[in-house]
């Protein structure tokens, strides 16, 4: 909402002068504090003082130039000035605005002496847009033309500002909240300011010289759909002659952001801006049946609106949660043909034109929800619909109708044409009489919510200037409040609480301390997240944020097999699903960095993934899970990086034995079958990973139980390994290995952990045994390690694989695995015999169970 200061000052005597920037800033701050947020303050009218009236004396061509001409003007007192001009819309004798060298146009453009095609230009002739007077940039603003061979009688050299009567002004660009429809008008804004400054509000009271016959005899209005329109008022003007609005009206419309057209349309817009009441003038002679009717549109009914577009009404299926009867309101003539979309836009057929001699102005109160619905589904938002959908003043119809007539008459008088006749009274239809909202407000409740200690009388004093009527109620300690008709949003006591706070001033409410009686702390999932982030950044991984709304294709390419959650209304067709995994996003991030020659890196992300699952009733429901993913793209072996980083995570989180279950190794059917797609939804999967370099991470105690069967859904924490080279290629990444870890955060949280009780550390010396076995490739090293661990029993302090060897000295299909086992007892130094005994047991166990051979 653009509000010129001069217009506001006409409605309340603000002391603020437009030239006083300090005072303007203070006024802007007050507007802010009233909730009328100032987005911008435009200074206008500056620069018009230096632009002067000049008469065109001579126009001549410039050699070699076909777009510009040399113009000699008289700028008064016989002083002539030569300029170069590219506009062709004026003639010798016309009076035009001249910006002399050294002057500065509105907007800060400085006029300098220039040379074009060898011709010196000592100033500039200006268009209306260059002077910030209107949007017109078709040509030079012609201020006067010779009449009947006589030069126009103007004072050459006079400043343009003086000539047009336009002084400096300030326009506040206000962001009006949806609950303040009253402030979509100069009157509403002025009302708030008047209350804040304790000034009177000068509500326009139109004075009309009415004449017979009565409007009601010239035209009639009908309401057929009371749910769409509660009241309809019309006035009639006859004997209309074409005219333009006076400069002041045009200027105000321009400053408020509207384009002046003719005195009728301008009056209509002016009333809407001034009073907040949208209205529409019709050419009465074009209205069949000489009247208007409001009814619900028939499905499929169409109308060509003022903008020339054909609009289809009433044929829309209801949205979810909307009543099936929700209808568009249409305005018809009395032959039942549509002539306008109620509250949104008028029709082209009954537009005001040069020939219009009788005008019917429609001033109605349409249902806010209905206008909102219609405007939304037509995708047509107008100044009128914006006001109606928030709610206009149902008590302001008569004033608006009269003000319209007054403005049209004034414009005709100013333009020197015979003013139209104003038919006596109104034609009107009332479907639903307006009843003001009455509320019981407890001052104690107001203070309790605000933390103030205002007396009931103080509250009344705050509310009265903004239109509330208040009196003590019969009930002790309460006020009976009558809400002003222009505040449809105020429906409950708490809304009045806000009004008290607003008019009192939010800034005057004293901040108080409120302490939580509870101990704040992070919950376990939050602690887990933080720990993971620290550990992963410790291994050099950067945290990424990839988008959750993605393309289905990239998800499939990255191995996603679950049913994707589709967006019903994506912004673009390529981003139409929710991600079901993090791989695609992180691969794209990797590719981006690789494209900037930073492709050797580690990234991780913690975020939600989504899938659809169908329940027993056949309904599709969302499955949302939090996942951690780590992408390991250093130059080392990808799978090895994944295992190493996983070991760091496992250790840092204190997990107790999560084991790797790798498909494709003989003798491990669990693994084999795990290679098939598991379950549905967001179950961790190996799809997208290298088939021979990936494994499930399975909670160990469960894994034991699952020996020989595929892992049950509830124990797989996640997967790790290497990204399938085909997937990498699909994302434009070639000739490299990329490690991958994906973990279900919820399951990670409940994974078994090391006991909290401390294990004592032995004070006795330990002994190491190194054991190297020749083991068939099919036997996972993990099985060897497990077997040694069981055989070593309680004396085992640590056990780890320290060497893997393939090559000469080993049979085909076997490799050497070398383990170091450290033994210690809590209560003694182990004897050589004891150590030898453990060694023997371990060798026996591994050779016996796994077909391995100790290497000499």
């Amino acid at each position, binding site marked *: 909402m653009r509000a010129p200061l001069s217009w506001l000052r006409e409605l309340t005597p603000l002391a603020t002068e437009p030239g006083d920037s300090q005072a303007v800033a203070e006024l802007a701050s007050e507007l802010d504090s009233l909730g009328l947020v100032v987005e911008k303050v435009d200074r206008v009218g500056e620069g018009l003082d230096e632009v002067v009236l000049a008469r065109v004396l001579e126009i001549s061509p410039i050699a070699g130039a076909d777009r510009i001409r040399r113009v000699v003007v008289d700028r008064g007192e016989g002083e002539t000035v030569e300029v170069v001009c590219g506009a062709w819309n004026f003639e010798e004798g016309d009076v035009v605005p001249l910006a002399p060298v050294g002057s500065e146009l509105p907007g800060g453009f400085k006029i300098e002496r220039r040379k074009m095609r060898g011709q010196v230009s000592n100033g500039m002739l200006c268009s209306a847009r260059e002077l910030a007077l209107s949007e017109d940039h078709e040509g030079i603003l012609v201020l006067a033309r010779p009449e009947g061979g006589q030069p126009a009688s103007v004072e050459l050299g006079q400043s343009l500002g003086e000539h047009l009567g336009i002084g400096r002004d300030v326009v506040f660009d206000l962001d009006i909240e*949806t609950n303040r429809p009253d402030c979509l008008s100069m009157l509403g804004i002025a009302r708030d300011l008047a209350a804040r400054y304790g000034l009177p509000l000068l509500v326009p009271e139109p004075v009309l010289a009415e004449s017979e016959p009565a409007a009601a005899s010239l035209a009639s209005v009908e309401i057929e759909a009371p749910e769409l329109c509660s009241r309809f008022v019309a006035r009639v003007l006859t004997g209309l002659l074409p005219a333009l609005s006076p400069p002041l009206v045009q200027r105000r419309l321009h400053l408020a952001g509207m384009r002046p057209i003719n005195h009728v349309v301008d009056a209509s817009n002016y009333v809407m801006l001034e009073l907040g009441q949208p209205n529409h003038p019709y050419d009465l002679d074009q209205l069949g049946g000489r009247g208007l009717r409001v009814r619900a549109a028939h499905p499929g009914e169409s109308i060509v609106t003022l903008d020339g577009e054909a609009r289809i009404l009433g044929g829309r299926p209801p949205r979810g949660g909307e009543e099936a009867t929700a209808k568009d309101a249409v305005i018809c003539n009395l032959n039942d043909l549509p002539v306008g979309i109620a509250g949104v836009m008028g029709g082209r057929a009954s537009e005001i034109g040069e020939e219009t001699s009788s005008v019917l102005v429609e001033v109605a109160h349409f249902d806010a929800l209905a206008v909102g*619905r219609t405007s939304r589904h037509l995708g047509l938002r107008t100044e009128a619909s914006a006001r109606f959908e928030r709610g206009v003043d149902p008590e302001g119809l008569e004033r608006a109708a009269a003000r319209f007539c007054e403005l049209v008459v004034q414009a005709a008088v100013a333009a020197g044409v015979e003013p139209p006749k104003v038919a006596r009274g109104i034609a009107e239809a009332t479907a639903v009489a307006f009843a003001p909202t009455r509320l019981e407000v407890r001052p104690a409740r107001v203070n309790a919510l605000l933390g103030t200690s205002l007396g009931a009388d103080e509250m009344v004093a705050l509310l009265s200037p903004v239109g509330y009527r208040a009196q003590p109620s019969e009930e002790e300690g309460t006020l009976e409040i009558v809400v002003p008709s222009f505040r449809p949003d105020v429906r409950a006591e708490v809304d009045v609480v*806000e009004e008290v706070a607003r008019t009192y001033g939010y800034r005057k*409410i004293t901040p108080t301390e409120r302490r939580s009686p509870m101990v704040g702390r992070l919950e376990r999932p939050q602690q887990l997240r933080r720990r993971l982030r620290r550990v992963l950044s410790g291994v*050099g991984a*950067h*945290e990424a944020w990839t988008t959750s709304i993605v393309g289905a294709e990239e998800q499939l390419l990255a191995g996603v097999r679950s049913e994707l959650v589709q967006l019903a209304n994506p912004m673009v067709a390529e981003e139409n699903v929710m991600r079901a995994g993090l791989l695609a996003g992180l691969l794209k991030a990797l590719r*981006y960095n690789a494209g900037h020659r930073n492709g050797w890196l580690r990234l991780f992300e913690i975020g939600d993934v989504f899938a659809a699952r169908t329940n027993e009733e056949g309904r599709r429901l969302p499955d949302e899970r939090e996942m951690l993913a780590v992408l390991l793209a250093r130059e080392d072996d990808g799978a090895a990086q994944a295992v190493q980083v996983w070991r760091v995570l496992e250790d840092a989180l204190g997990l107790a034995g999560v084991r790797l279950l790798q498909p494709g190794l003989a003798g491990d059917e669990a693994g084999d079958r795990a290679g098939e797609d598991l379950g549905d939804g967001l179950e961790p999967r190996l799809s997208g990973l290298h088939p021979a370099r990936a494994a499930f991470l399975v909670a160990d105690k469960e894994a034991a139980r699952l020996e020989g069967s595929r892992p049950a859904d509830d124990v797989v924490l996640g997967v790790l390994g290497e990204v399938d080279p085909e997937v990498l290629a699909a994302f434009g990444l070639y000739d490299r290995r990329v490690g991958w870890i994906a973990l279900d955060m919820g399951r990670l949280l409940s994974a078994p952990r090391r006991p909290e009780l401390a294990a004592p550390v032995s004070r006795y010396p330990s002994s190491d045994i190194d054991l190297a076995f020749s083991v068939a490739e099919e036997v996972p090293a993990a099985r060897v390690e497990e077997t040694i661990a069981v055989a070593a029993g309680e004396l085992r302090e640590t056990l780890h694989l320290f060497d893997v060897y393939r090559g000469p000295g080993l049979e085909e299909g076997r490799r050497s695995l070398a383990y170091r086992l450290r033994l210690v007892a809590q209560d003694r130094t182990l004897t050589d015999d004891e150590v030898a005994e453990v060694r023997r047991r371990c060798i026996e166990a591994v050779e016996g169970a796994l077909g391995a051979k100790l290497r000499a």
Partner: protein
Amino acid sequence: MSQTAGGDDPVLPFTPAELAEIEAEAVAAVAAAADLAALEEAERLALGKRSRFSLLYQQLGQLAPAGRKEAGQRLHQLRRRLEDLVDERRSELEAAGRLARLRGDRLDLTEVVGGELAGHLHLVTEVREQLEDIFVGMGYEIAEGPEVETDWYNFEALNIGPDHPARGSTDTFFLELDGAQGESYLLRTQTSPVQIHLLERGRLPIYAVAPGRTYRRDTADATHLPGFHQIEGLVVDHGVTMGDLAGTIETFIRALFGGEVSTRLRPAHFPFTEPSAEFEISCQICAGAGCRTCSMTGWIELGGCGMVHPNVFVATGVDPEEWTGFAFGFGIDRLAIMRHGIADLRSFVENDVRFLSQF
């Protein structure tokens, strides 16, 4: 050394000059020893069995007792001096040797290659964790909620009726899922649905904040992303006032920005709070003097807040006459770009390591 004078002097097997000569020779030899082997040789020549010193020593036994004592003392002192000299020289040579050895092991510490750098957390995480820490310090719980919500949680219970423009498909992403009784599933447009989850939980009072990802149908540009992050606050207790709201905002903004910042409220409109407000902080760039960042106002709008609307309490089964509360919310990403002078919000989802590793 004391020189005795007089004719009854005992007869000595050496003259003082002879001793001095022995000493001078030995001192010169020790000083000249360039390494430990040379030093050993010098020591052997000076004090060894065949040295002049030893020969003199061996003659002691033949002297009269009086002379023997005198001569013995002198020779002993000389030996002590020479031994000390050798020890001292040995330490010198050893230290020099060690130094020479280690010099050979020199490493220019500025020529070291490679090494791992730490990974960096996403800036949004850093800011979110900072906010969480502040509120934990104020005794708040950190609540969370799903990103896929129903229109009950995202709208209806928040007093946003079916005809509210925000419920249209212009602003909200709806999902092809089937809610119960015609309800729609959608991507939450705000973190406010967490308020409803907290209230429905039924454990009062509530002092909580809820950070998380939210979605709106905005085209990605320098200041918008269709997916972004917000933090929501909710306090419900007996006798909570708007003054408490103002005070709480002041407290956490001070904790966030340090002491030199002021806050203020101005009227606004949100369906789920009444009275509603925007809260502003004094501009951190110009300290309130007015600059481009704050459009010359000295204030920067940070978020929305207000007193919990009674309809929200009623929707969640909480008695609005017994309990009052306030809520507030603001964008984590916006706070981050403001604090770090980031020109384009899209930097956050590009995941350029050159950007990520700055924070």
